[in-house]
């Protein structure tokens, strides 16, 4: 049994001070910490009294408080744009009761290989807002790669610019409520007859995530009528670990086929 100290800060300043203790972790009500070994943790900062549950959608910009749950993000964004990539990614993640607890901040901090969230945030060039030892806005990829940013710091929000993208999300799952072996996030910008820009992220690869530049380069500037699924498949060469009991070679083949299908569907709709 682990004796934990619980803190209930009422201001950002207080939270920022608390999080600078190395063995104290922030907790927004998510499920990540409950799956972890807390033997090196002395305390948890309960974040529910802080104003971290707001979602601000202003002209072209979205800011989501880190304690927002997946269900809350889906519900709020749906009102504004039911086709938003975050709605597509999160509405079928985990299961209904879990979506009422999993938080955006907790999910970013944990970034498991089955994350449905990270592909979208990477594709959207999101920034995390930190307080504590590291203070300010940091690009998501920098946050992922630089472990020192996690130390004695806490995510208060994630921000991204809202641009005009056609988007879709695919999960490789065995049953509807499953942690995906891999998942695709695709953003396309289409200008009448051709693709102007694209972002394609696969999460769940050996390097945790992969930006599939080969396919992006194939698509950018290409006429829609000239896009071939078979060509897209052949450009996909991803490494999987088999950690979700999958067959890594097959996962690569499946990832390619499903990516080709997704893109075909998106351009023809």
């Amino acid at each position, binding site marked *: 049994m682990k004796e934990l100290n619980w803190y209930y800060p009422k201001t950002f300043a207080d939270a920022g001070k608390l999080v600078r203790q190395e063995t104290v972790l922030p907790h927004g009500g998510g499920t990540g910490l409950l799956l972890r070994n807390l033997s090196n943790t002395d305390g948890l900062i309960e974040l529910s009294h802080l104003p971290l549950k707001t979602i601000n959608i202003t002209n072209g910009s979205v800011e989501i408080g880190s304690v927002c749950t997946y269900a809350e993000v889906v519900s709020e964004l749906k009102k504004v744009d039911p086709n938003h990539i975050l709605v597509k990614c999160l509405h079928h993640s985990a299961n209904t009761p879990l979506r009422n607890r999993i938080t955006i901040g907790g999910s970013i901090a944990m970034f498991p290989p089955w994350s449905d969230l990270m592909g979208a945030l990477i594709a959207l060039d999101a920034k995390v807002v930190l307080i504590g030892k590291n203070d300010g806005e940091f690009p998501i990829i920098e946050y992922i790669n630089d472990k020192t940013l996690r130390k004695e710091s806490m995510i208060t929000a994630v921000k991204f610019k809202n641009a005009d993208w056609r988007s879709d999300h695919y999960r490789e799952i065995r049953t509807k409520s499953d942690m995906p072996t891999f998942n695709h996030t695709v953003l396309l910008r289409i200008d009448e007859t051709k693709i102007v820009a694209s972002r394609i992220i696969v999460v769940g690869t050996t390097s945790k995530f992969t930006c599939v530049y080969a396919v992006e380069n194939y698509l950018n500037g290409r006429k829609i009528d000239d896009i071939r699924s078979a060509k897209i498949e052949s450009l996909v060469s991803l490494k999987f670990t088999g950690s979700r009991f999958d067959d890594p070679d097959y996962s690569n*083949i499946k990832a390619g086929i499903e990516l080709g299908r997704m893109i075909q569907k998106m351009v023809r709709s």
Partner: protein
Amino acid sequence: MNKYTIVGKSEKKIDSLSLATGTSKFVDDFELKDPLYLALLYSPHAHAEILNIDDSEARKLPGVVDVFHFKNVKPILHTTAGQGFPEPSPYDTVLFDTKMRFVGDRVAMVAAESRQIASDAIKLINVEYKVLEPLFDPEKAMSDNAPKLHGPDRFTPIGAKYEPEKNLAAEVEIGFGDLEKGENEADFIIDHTYKAHYGSHCAQEPHAAISFYDEMGRLVIVTTTQVPFHVRRIVSKVCEFPLSKIRVIKPRIGGGFGGKQEVFLEQLVALTSIKHKRSAKIVLSRKEVFQNSRTRHPVRIRLRTGVKNDGQITFLEMDSLLNSGAYGTHALTVLSNCGAKVLPLFNKIENLRFLGRSVYTNLPVGGAYRGYGATQGYFALNQQLDMIARKLDIDLLGFIKKNHIQVGETSQVFKALGEGTEGVTQIVNSCKLDECIDIGAREIGWYNKRSKKITNGDKVSGVGLCVAMQGSGIPLIDMAAATMKMNDDGSFNLDIGATDIGTGSDTVLAQIAAEVLGVGLDKMIVLSSDTDRTPFDVGAYASSTTYISGGAVKKCAEKIRNQILDVAAAMMAADKNDLDLSDGRVYDRKNKKSISLSDVAVHALYSENQFQIQASASNVVEQSPPPFIAQFAEVEVDKKTGKVDVIKFVSAVDCGQALNPILTEGQIEGAVVNGICYALTEEYKFSANGNLLTKHFRDYKIWTAADMPEIKTIVVDSHEESGPFGAKSVGEIGINGPMPAIANAIYDAVGVRLFEAPFTPAKVYRAMKQAGVI
């Protein structure tokens, strides 16, 4: 067309409301005074000798009361199989052994003042192991240089063939006719090997047991069991405690499916209580249920069938190898059932051989699981039938109708192959399989879809069939009993040993009694599965409850009826033969008068020639009339990726008179979804060292409602004369169909045959690639 008053009606299950409002108590819900909590230490090695256990550090932890292991617990050989005595399973288990036989085998147990202290103490036990070479491949189990799991002190109480020095847990062989003749007569021979894989029951309630002393100093065990009477007997033997001092109670149980037909935790709480004179409690975690309880036995079946061009099957040879895991519980009986419940269905095969072996391996332990060998056997048989029909280019449905067992017929297999011992000859009295096939075929649209390979983008559809029979109890072995008494207000106590594990048997058995006595369910007070208060019943397995326990209830109710009529006849000065029971009254047909059952009861209890209207009856029978089922799967296979989706699944079942149609449907629907998941998503994965890796629901996948396709269940009108109000049993048969029907449907769609499930996208893809379809 229902000729009964309450039988055949979908009466509400009597415990439904209590369960839906959370009032019913399950084992973990009972309040215990000051219990000792038990935690188990499991072996990290697949095969090892324990050289020493040092529990001194664990004992020092405040709150630790005891540590049990081989040094302080007497090793009494037994089987954990919940079967009748003498059990047809080898006595190869002791509570705490010196040898570990699978990753997850039991090393030691801590009894402590809290769950937390018990699980902390486990980590402080020091064990010195001598690691031995493990055996994981059942095909290699009997080779000379294979590691040996069990010593010569092991034995089988029924004297069945058992050679532990060769890792042979059981062996069966039957045959008749002349196999060679059959081979020579055949125009072609189909010879394939099928593999049925591991499965976990996934009953939503994990196993649990509590024990405590009552006010009279008797030991009470409340446990998640399908077999309370076997629990009492086995605990008495293993704990060397008088049976008369033990009371076993089954409360509400959160599902069993065979996983709770096993006596492996009750001895632990009993041992603790007996030694420390305190109550004790153990509740398994889901991880422990996956690894440390029981599984479905994986079975490898080689099936050879010889066929003439005119469709006659000239011979059949089924060679089964069952992977028993570390212990041989149910090893003989599940093995036997691969043939016993499967081969009689095609009784016109004159030259037949069934041989099977169950072998020990250093892997998790197989046990009872719905279907019990028939599921594995039908996976092989139904694919083979599909292949035969295709090779002959004939209508599969017609082929099956021509060849299956019919009313008035028997099969030599019935007598030759029982459940572990010799069987009992059966003559089929009711069989509506043809109707099941026709109705099911219509519902799925068989002839519009079969071989049509209808495409939908990248997907192609196919349909497949499975036909099956099961049994209704084990003839001459399964016994059930019931006791009834009548109360002042014309209500009745019905005390039955029969075990309701969510199936609704309390309700169905009450309906039988109510039908005999002409009352509603509100007049039936049911008490079940308490070894002090209810008479014997083998328990909920072998699909015995409706048929055998139901038969006991009917007999008992008829005795009660007789007593009521005697009293009423005297009261009404009528002829007993002119009297009927209905609507809670006794009607005199001749004199057009009636009195209430309450009048009768009060008269008998208080007025004259007072006596308690009460009766007991037992039931053990020679018959085990098989239910029959035809199950159809429609699938869509993605031609590029191999992903298989079930679009529709149809079951048409003949279970005799359905005593409660909604409950009957519920049994089939639950079994079907279980079977579909077993076919598509459920998989045990092991590390190279034999450690089970899939020990959580996030890894071992089963469906939620979100995955559901269209499931249709049709209960065909049927009547089995020997059954209570025409009933046969229905608890297991539904699980046999999905795996073979889906395999056959996949073949119908993409021309690729799968001999091992689960049919994951990767597996189907690779099969299609190998067949040149991709």
